[in-house]
């Protein structure tokens, strides 16, 4: 059979399995000899495999595991399967209404075709510093539901990334789902990113802000996270704290802006200098906070 394209650059011996339960997937990961890779959307995994950057011996397709796919409500809170695609998130009206920032962040990733594949869990676990959904996910207060050979554990989304391409999960652990906090009536989020074109690009800077207001419109709780300004997405507790107790006046915004700039440790590259990225991180935080505040007040 003629081969005219680059199939052959995929690893010749890679094996493919599609377990139906998390327990089976964990067992396969633990038993794997060589490099086992979890296949959700594959938008990074298959590209890196083709380029030879990684050489998986085993692909574990997790999209047949019911716990890992789709959106459900448990005890009044959304639980999102880690392998759920951006397209599926964007089609879920109730989720979009409650968490507009998280969904706009996830839906910024790639084209329509990529959206059908790219998963929210994969975006976190690939651990790109510029991952669009991650600042919004951390700002949301999402809890990661993880399963491994020793059972289940829960960890905050900001504890997953440890460096570019590096995460805190063991090789035989599986990120099964995210549990979002229960959503109050006057709570909303927003995500903004800067790119030099209108879409289909990697964030120069991204900022996610999640606000909860009291009955008088005073900010009762706030979480801020920024992306592409450090080796990992930064959860900036001080910026959230600066907004609490205010109605988002200029003084509060100035403090949050300064708190964000204080922790940025970006690199200079073709997409932006250290100075530019640091400045923009503060600006996007202010703007995202205003959007989140308007949404929460509506």
């Amino acid at each position, binding site marked *: *059979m003629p*081969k005219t*394209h*680059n*199939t052959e650059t*995929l*690893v*010749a*011996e*890679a*094996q*493919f399995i*599609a377990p139906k339960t998390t327990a089976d997937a964990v067992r396969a990961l633990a038993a794997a000899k060589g490099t086992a890779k979890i*296949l959700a*959307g*594959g*938008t990074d995994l*298959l*590209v890196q*495999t*083709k380029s030879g950057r990684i050489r998986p011996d085993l*692909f574990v*397709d997790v*999209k047949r595991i019911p716990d890992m796919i789709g959106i459900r409500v448990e005890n009044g809170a959304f639980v999102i399967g880690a392998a759920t*695609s951006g*397209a599926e998130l964007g089609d879920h009206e109730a989720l979009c209404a409650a968490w507009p920032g998280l969904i706009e962040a996830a839906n910024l990733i*790639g*084209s*329509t*075709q*990529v959206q*059908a*594949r790219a998963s929210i869990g994969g975006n976190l676990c690939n651990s790109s510093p510029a991952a669009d959904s991650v600042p919004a996910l951390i700002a949301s207060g999402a809890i990661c539901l993880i399963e491994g050979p020793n059972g289940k554990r829960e960890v905050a989304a900001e504890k997953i990334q440890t460096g570019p391409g590096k995460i805190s999960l063991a090789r035989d652990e599986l990120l099964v789902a995210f549990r979002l906090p229960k959503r109050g009536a006057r709570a909303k989020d927003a995500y903004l990113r800067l790119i030099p074109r209108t*879409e*289909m690009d990697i964030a120069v800077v991204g900022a996610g802000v999640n606000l909860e207001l009291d009955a008088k419109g005073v900010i009762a709780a706030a979480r801020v996270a920024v992306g592409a300004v450090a080796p990992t997405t930064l959860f900036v507790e001080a910026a959230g704290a600066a907004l609490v107790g205010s109605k988002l006046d200029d003084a509060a915004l100035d403090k949050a802006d300064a708190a964000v700039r204080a922790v940025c440790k970006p690199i200079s590259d073709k997409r932006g200098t250290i100075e530019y990225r640091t400045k923009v991180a503060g600006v996007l935080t202010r703007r995202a906070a205003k959007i989140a505040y308007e949404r929460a007040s509506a």
Partner: protein
Amino acid sequence: MSKVHVSAVVNGEPVEMLVGQRQTMLDALRDELRLTGSKEGCGTGDCGACSIVVDGRLTASCLMLAPEADGRRIETIEGMAGEGGGMHPLQVKFLEHAALQCGFCTPGLLVASKALLDRNPDPSETEVRFWLAGNLCRCTGYDKIVRAVLDAAAELRQEVVR
């Protein structure tokens, strides 16, 4: 390495095939099923030339492994024309508007455009442009393509254009 048996529905027809465990869906369509309408432009999900529809979702088939197709409903460019070879209104309008030159991107653009109109029969120009942002054309530019899609949408809604 043993091959994997895959049962899928491709363009409405039940299909059984043996695929490699690391073979992409694009390669399986082209090499196993001989459906060569889907093209490999980049192989990295950037160009859209390999666009297919999987369980109703527009997908880059180069970013999907063939074993994943088991039990799925797949639509490709080969299923777009009607019975007896009658062209789909999008295909007619692409010709009328000269929305192609070399044609390499055309199957992907047609599949992507049909997926849009199946979902949104009356898209704005902006919606068309955003939806098709993952389909790259290096010949025509995009104006003729966008006009062809809007014109086909109007025809499918059975509206009189201009």
